Structures are given as structure tokens and as C-alpha cells.
């Protein structure tokens, strides 16, 4: 590595590490513990973990097949589709929330029929939180898994087929294990993004304690009236996400263990 790059790397690390460090440094540790036991905090944390996990699960169920399709289709035909499905990556999340309302809101393109035919209203429910988070986070999973699938030597699948394995058996025992690191990285990114999701959630799902007010929403609200409380909540979110991501890594991708 050229020497000049080392200095920039140090700067880059500092840029990413110091702001969270400041958060930890300035945290009102004295009041942290009793705030942790605050039912409202626990409720927001529980809701955040449940909804981010659900959004991640939904992303896996829908995103992995999508990534597979994108990775295995002739490049030109799917170029537009690939660009379209990564739009949520660049869309401001608040706009994403409005877009979801325009589709699934009770006057939305689809939502009006859901309401009229089934009496189903999605906004302001926990399901809306899950959908908003998945909308914003799934592209991370798709991009990461698609990359892993593209990097995989197709001849492993050829070998499996000539050994007598059907497509599902090959997918389960050959392809998924081979892309596991990419899948795990994508899942972790997806979960982290879902956990931190704010804009799309507040726009599409609203903010009601216990139903739709996740940690980021609680933090933003606290910032308006009680910045110290906001810092404490941010720490809780920080710790929760680190714990989950480390656990995920240990459990599913032992190879990535440091």
C-alpha cells in the first residue's frame, strides 16, 4: 500500500469512528441505566428489533430470488430492472415513504382496493413499519447477493447437475453455501439499514408508541425536547445493533470471525 494512502486511511477511520465515539463520550451515563428500564424505551427497542428482523426476513424471502434472477439473466435484458430495483438506495427515504403511501395508502393505487375489498389499511400499523424498512433495506441485500452469485463459477452447478442433483438440491447444498459470506454480509447490511430506518417509516407508518414508533423515531422526537434522552436512546440502538450483528456473524459466517 502506498504510504500516502495510509494517512488517508487513518483519516477515513477517524471520520467514521469519532462521531459515535463522541456519542459515547458525551452520554449521560448516570441516567442511562434508569432510562434503559423505562418501559417506553424497552417498547421502542422491542418494536425496532421485531420490525427490523421481520423486514430482513421479508428481504431474504423476496430479495434472494430477485438477486438470483438478476445474476443469472442475460445482461442487457435485465439492466433496466437492476437499475430500477436499486432506486430505493438513492431515493431520500422520506420520498420512499410518500411513494409507499401513494401505492399502499388507503387512497393509494393498490391500497384503495385493499381497503375497499378486504377492509385492510396498511399505514399506521407495524406491518407498515416492516414494509417501509424492507423497501429501503432490501436493495442492500439484493446488490450484495447478486454480486456473490455473479462471482460464483457456474461449473459448480454443472458438476452438481451431472452428479444427479436437481435445481433445488443444488441451490440448497451448493449455491447457498457458496454465497454464504455475501448473503451474510447482505443480511447484516439489510438488518442494520432497517434498524436505523427513519424517513420512510415516519412518513408511511407514522409514529405511535408500541405500534410504529421505532428507536430512530423515538430518538428524533426526544431530540426536540430532551437531547440527553436522545443520546441515551442512540446508545441503546448502537449497542443493540452491534450485539445483533456480532451474533449474526458468529452464528452464520464463522469464516468472517476475526
Amino acid at each position, binding site marked *: 500500500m502506498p504510504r500516502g494512502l495510509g494517512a488517508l486511511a487513518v483519516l477515513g477511520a477517524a471520520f467514521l469512528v469519532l462521531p459515535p465515539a463522541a456519542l459515547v463520550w458525551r452520554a449521560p451515563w448516570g441516567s442511562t441505566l434508569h432510562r434503559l428500564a423505562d418501559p417506553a424505551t424497552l417498547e421502542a427497542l422491542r418494536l425496532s428489533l421485531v420490525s427490523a428482523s421481520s423486514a430482513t426476513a421479508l428481504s431474504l424471502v423476496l430479495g434472494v430470488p430477485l438477486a438470483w434472477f438478476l445474476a443469472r439473466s442475460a445482461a442487457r435484458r435485465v439492466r433496466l430492472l437492476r437499475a430500477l430495483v436499486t432506486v430505493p438506495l438513492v431515493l431520500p427515504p422520506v420520498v420512499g415513504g410518500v411513494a409507499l403511501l401513494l401505492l399502499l395508502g388507503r387512497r393509494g393505487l393498490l391500497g384503495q382496493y385493499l381497503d375497499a375489498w378486504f377492509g385492510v389499511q396498511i399505514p399506521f400499523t407495524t406491518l407498515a413499519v416492516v414494509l417501509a424498512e424492507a423497501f429501503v433495506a432490501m436493495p442492500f441485500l439484493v446488490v450484495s447477493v447478486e454480486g456473490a452469485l455473479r462471482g460464483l463459477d457456474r461449473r459448480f452447478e454443472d458438476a452438481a447437475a451431472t452428479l444427479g*442433483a436437481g435445481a433445488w438440491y443444488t441451490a440448497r447444498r451448493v449455491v447457498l453455501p457458496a454465497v454464504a459470506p455475501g448473503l451474510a454480509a447482505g443480511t447484516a447490511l439489510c438488518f442494520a439499514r432497517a434498524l436505523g430506518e427513519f424517513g420512510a417509516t415516519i412518513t408511511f407508518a407514522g409514529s405511535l408508541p408500541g405500534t410504529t414508533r421505532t428507536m430512530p423515531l423515538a430518538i428524533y422526537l426526544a431530540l426536540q425536547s430532551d437531547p440527553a434522552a436522545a443520546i441515551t436512546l442512540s446508545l441503546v440502538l448502537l449497542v443493540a445493533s452491534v450485539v445483533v450483528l456480532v451474533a449474526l456473524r458468529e452464528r452464520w459466517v464463522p469464516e468472517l470471525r476475526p
Partner: protein
Amino acid sequence: MIAARLLVRRAGFTLDVDLTVGPGEVVAVLGPNGAGKTTVLRALAGLEAVDEGRIANDDTVWDDPATGAWVPPQGRGVGLVFSEHLLFARMSALENVSFGLRARRVDRRAARARSLEWLARLGLTELADRRPDELSRGQAQRVALARTLATRPRLLLLDEPLAALDATVRGEVRRHLADYLRGEHGGCLLVTHDPVDATLLANRAVVLEDGHVTQDGTPGELATAPRTAWTAKLLGVNVYRGTSDGARVSLDGGGTLTAASAPTGAVVLTVSPASVAVHRDRPAGSPRNVWPVTVTAVQQTGHTVRLTLEGTPPISADLTPGAVAELGLAAGAHAWASVKANEVRAEAR
């Protein structure tokens, strides 16, 4: 008995091949890169469909675009071994060998027992629990062979199975392969670049050039009577095209050679490198063909040294290391080549 007529069209390339592989037969497929050898294997394995033609195993049609008949790879009972082992990285050697059996719903214990038998046959018992990254290349390739053979393929397809191995382990893997092929099996198609593989393993050899079969015969027939320069070169034989007046042949590339007997008109001449003599000074005796040459390459292969000689015509000569040393032949040296007329074989073309 596999009978196939394969017609596959790609941009700028057409593969058009008729091929049969009988039970117990080992057919070597030789040919330059890009000749379509791998496409033949992939079509037979069912990894690619033919555009026209028909592939049948006895009475079962595997692929026939005209009738729409199609059997996918997993239904053909074909085994395919690549030059890279392509073992599944997250499985042990034993799990890799069991893979095909488990995919065919053989129960776990039976699959394990049969896999261990195959590992033992290939001398891999000790390595059953190793992961592919803990095996040497030769060991990994033997595991890959065991993985394929454990499924008892009715047609074994080998795509340059020894090409990625270095010389020391190549012989060992080849021996295991030869052991298997000597026994009872459904037939084997071996793609290779190595005439030694073809000679030692195959009953029959097919030369594929630019999508077409240019020669089909025993490896011996190919070596002694190659029909194209590629075959001659691969098997070490000098090939010239020329025009004959009955004895003297003017070569298309320049120079003349005299054959003991030759048809008149367009001919192919072959000269075995072993029959070429090399001298430091112009020889006085009887040879009819004597011409000055320059040594451009000296390469030892086994017990002989292959000299590449530039001249009119250029020629390859095989000498003993002793002779090379005695003559002081090195790249750049000037010398004389001579070939007896009765060593020049001529065929009408």
C-alpha cells in the same frame, strides 16, 4: 451405446460432429483450443442443448430438437470431471463423494459406505474428513474422480482431467483412471491435449478441428498417419504439403524432399522426428535429403531431446542427450539435417 449427432451454432463457429461411444470404450477427443471439444462434452452432459441433431443412449433419446425430446443432466446418468476439481468447498472429501448419491436419495448410511469404498479405491481413506482446501491438487482431483465414479455413470466425460496437475502427480492420477477404465464401465469420452493420455487411456481417438472431426482412429494410427499438421505436431510428426513428380516433392512452404515412393500430384509428407539425422558438417554419404539448418530450440522430453530446426524446410528432430552433447548443439548453432528417402512417407491428398 451412446450415439450422437451434434450440431451447435455459435457466432462465427459451428460444431458438427457424429460420435459414438460403445460400452467399455474410451474415446479420446483431441484438438486445438476452440475446436469445440468442451461443447461436445457439455452437449452430451445436457448442460447445453444441440441446435440440430440427436443424442441417444441405446433407445433413450436425451436430446432431439426435432421431436422436443430432452432429458436434463441429472436424468442422464452422465459423469463429468473437469480439469479443476470443482469440489464443493464447504463439504469434506467424504461429503463431496456422497453428494451424488444423496442427491439420488440414497439413504445416509448406504451413501457413506459406498463413498468410503470409492475413497479407498482411489487411496484416499485417510483424507475422508479433509476439506478441499486441505488437499493437494492431485488428492483433490482424485476426490473429484471418486465423486463422479461413485454415481456409476453410464457415460463418463473427462474434460482434460489431468491438465491442471503437475507432472509428478499426473502419472498417479492417470494410473487410477486407467485402473477404472480397464474394468467394466459404460463408456468414456476423454478430452485431452496430451498424446500420452490418449495413447495410454484410449482405445480410439477423434481429432476435432474447427468444429469438425478431421480424423478418427486408434491412437497408433493417428501417430503414424496423421492427417493434419495439428495432429502431426501434437503427436510429434513433421507434416509437409507439396506437389510430387513421382519421387521429388516440391513443398508448398519451400524446399524439396525426395521420397522412396510417392504418388504424383498433391501429397502429404510425414517425417518422424526420430528418423532425422543431424550433423555438424555436410555429410558425405548416401542420404538423398540433406540441407543446412539452424537450431532454434532444444527441449528434453523423457529420454530424448527434441531439436527444432529452422531451414528450408523447417523440421523437428529427436536425438539422444548424448548425441546432442557430442555435436555441441545449442540454440543458434548451424548444422545439417538429413533424412533417408525411405523415411519420408507420402500420401496423396
